């Protein structure tokens, strides 16, 4: 399959690969998987004052599109507030990376991982997950 140039770029030079301390109270961790393809994605966010995302890291076991999707998602949310990050949709990733239909589930996985990480942070700090996003960790639609 032909990957778009942006996917190849993110895949070859992934941004923000790595880990944060998941026991840190200011860090939210989301680990999700898609059984159909066996991909697993971990996304971590470090949240600073004013609910601003100071740092984001990911680790992904999966195809190039899954790695590119998580790389892009971490890149986008850095510097954003939790509320802004909550609005990120998988379709934004699909459009930016020109993902073909068979790879859309990779972007869903990235969105799920992000939401799970935000939910984890909010839960840790006794805050509520904003309306319409009651999910914690879940398995991605594939």
């Amino acid at each position, binding site marked *: 399959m032909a990957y778009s140039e942006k996917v190849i770029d993110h895949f070859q030079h992934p941004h923000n690969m790595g880990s944060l301390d998941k026991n840190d109270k200011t860090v939210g961790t989301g*680990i999700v*998987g898609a059984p159909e*393809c*066996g*991909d697993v994605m971990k996304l971590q966010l470090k949240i600073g004052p004013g609910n601003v995302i100071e740092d984001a890291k990911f*680790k*992904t*076991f999966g195809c190039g599109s899954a790695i590119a999707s998580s790389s892009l998602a971490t890149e986008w949310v850095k510097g954003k507030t939790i509320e802004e990050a909550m609005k990120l949709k998988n379709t934004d990733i699909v459009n930016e990376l020109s993902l073909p239909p068979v790879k859309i589930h990779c972007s869903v996985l990235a969105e799920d991982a992000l939401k799970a990480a935000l939910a984890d942070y909010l839960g840790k700090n006794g805050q509520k997950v904003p309306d319409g996003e009651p999910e914690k*960790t*879940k398995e991605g639609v594939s």
Partner: protein
Amino acid sequence: MPNPESVRTALDGAAKHLCWSCREETGEGPFCESCVKIQPAELMGDYFALFELPRAYAVDAQYLKNKFYELSRKFHPDFYGDKTDAEKTLARDNSAYLNTAFRTLSDPIKRAEYLLVRCARGYRVDLVPPQGLFEEILTAGELLEKNSLSSEDLTTLRETGRVFAVRQDERIVSLAGLFDRLVAGDDAAKGEIENAINEIKYLRTILDRIDQRLHKTI
């Protein structure tokens, strides 16, 4: 363990079909009992019925293979060269149906999903993502990303692969008992089955990748 025969009768009911050619009752086999013409294999029931197996997860691989060869010979289009077009078409369709059935029943994941659809009674389950397994997969994945593997890395990778393979086999074995529970009316088994299937899928993917890497390195 439920009696296989009683299970099958309870699920299938007794369906009678008329032969497309002579309009007599065809009987249970893939050939009409009156005029001996080939019948659509789908009419024999689902894949389990085609292979004359009870609807249970545990399947004898050797039996499956033998039955597949036996039916393949019966349906093979080469033997229908001098038959009518209708029979040629049926031979072709039956061969395709048989191949799909064999592929489905031979594969531990496909067989589980196929059986689940047939046993489950519209009961929604909440999947529990295997968080512990996810972490182990990510750790193994990091090793796979490395450009070159030290002998220590290789040992770790082999050991990880061995552990994953054992767990995959355990989950596959556990499915037989879970399906027996589901067939016997225990709806709670459905969730456990779906979780087990998912876990097997994750394990299969990481195991394939580990195998590829180990073979490339040798």
